[in-house]
């Protein structure tokens, strides 16, 4: 990344009206971008996601100014777009390309990413709400058929995984599929080098009935047995987040 000249760097309005649209032009024409700039303390957060029929891109950039946050996110997104072009050229993917999230660099406080996986949308939303209010970046999956793609392509720090995903898929099977998916794409294997998201299984079944598969990519750290009321869920989630990021919340 080149030098950021603060005297002439674009302001937030310019970023939204000129720089972000220019970035989106490099992406598939049928896609929908979602852009958010927010400020947390002294840091600015640029949160970008893009969905089209053939690709998904997402990135978070954090910086001391909106432009610095955007510049970091843009760098990540440009790499994802290059990888998408390469995958299409090599014929590696006949399905939708889902770009892996990348580790944030050059920041002081990286928010944790919490991924909630539950086919029951009400349960998923309650958990998502808790982790979001704890300051985490959150992602939520309620469709069982997308689980293995998402958990292999989003660099989540914490994954809350419902064990019974619809009538045809167990959480363990989703982890097995994700493991195979990661091993198929070298760029995903690179992301997972030296990194293992912590998985909390969540089910009405007792822990003794949960058979988490052998995998080098995910770390099964706890099991929460349903039903759990909201205050207890919030308490356990807060303890989990605190253990992952002791300096401050998320």
């Amino acid at each position, binding site marked *: 990344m080149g030098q950021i000249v603060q005297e002439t760097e674009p302001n937030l309005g310019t970023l939204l009206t000129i720089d972000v649209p220019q970035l989106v032009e490099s992406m598939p024409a049928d896609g929908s971008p979602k852009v958010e700039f927010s400020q947390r303390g002294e840091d600015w957060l640029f949160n970008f996601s893009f969905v089209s029929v053939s690709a998904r891109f997402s990135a978070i950039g954090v910086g001391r100014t909106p432009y610095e946050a955007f510049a970091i996110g843009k760098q990540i997104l440009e790499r994802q777009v290059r990888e998408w072009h390469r995958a299409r050229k090599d014929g590696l993917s006949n399905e939708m390309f889902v770009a892996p999230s990348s580790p944030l660099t050059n920041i002081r406080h990286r928010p944790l990413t919490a991924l909630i996986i539950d086919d*029951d*949308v*009400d*349960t998923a*939303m*309650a958990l998502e*709400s*808790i982790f979001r*209010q704890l300051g985490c970046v959150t992602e939520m999956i309620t469709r069982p058929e997308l689980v293995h793609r998402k958990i292999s392509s989003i660099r989540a720090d914490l994954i809350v995984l419902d064990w*019974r995903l619809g*009538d045809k898929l167990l959480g363990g099977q989703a982890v097995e599929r994700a493991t195979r998916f990661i091993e198929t794409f070298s760029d995903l294997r690179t992301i997972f080098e030296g990194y293992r998201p912590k998985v909390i299984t969540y089910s*009405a079944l007792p822990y003794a009935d949960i058979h988490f598969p052998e995998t080098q990519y995910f770390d099964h750290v706890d099991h929460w047995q*349903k*039903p*759990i*009321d*909201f*205050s207890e*869920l*919030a308490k356990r989630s807060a303890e989990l987040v605190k253990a992952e990021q002791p300096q401050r919340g998320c």
Partner: protein
Amino acid sequence: MPNNISVPRELKAYIPGFLERRDKDLAQLRDLIAQEDYQLLGTIGHKLKGNGASYGFPAITEIGGAIEDAASKKDKDRIFGLVEDFAELIAEIKEHV
């Protein structure tokens, strides 16, 4: 039946959608009783057992668990009674929230 209703402040905005989905569950439960589809009855009971308490409705959890249990035993009469209890519970919740 105890009907403690204590909706977490953080989830209040989600309650209308939650109740709308419970209305759909209720309609589906009634259809499934007529079809004697005990597997799907059990699935819905299991779901209610899991999500009721997290929204501040332990009574939904209780009924869901009972439906799941009755479905495993194919006890149609018991399921029918529980579903009617569920209907009353949802109506009561709507009055309070």
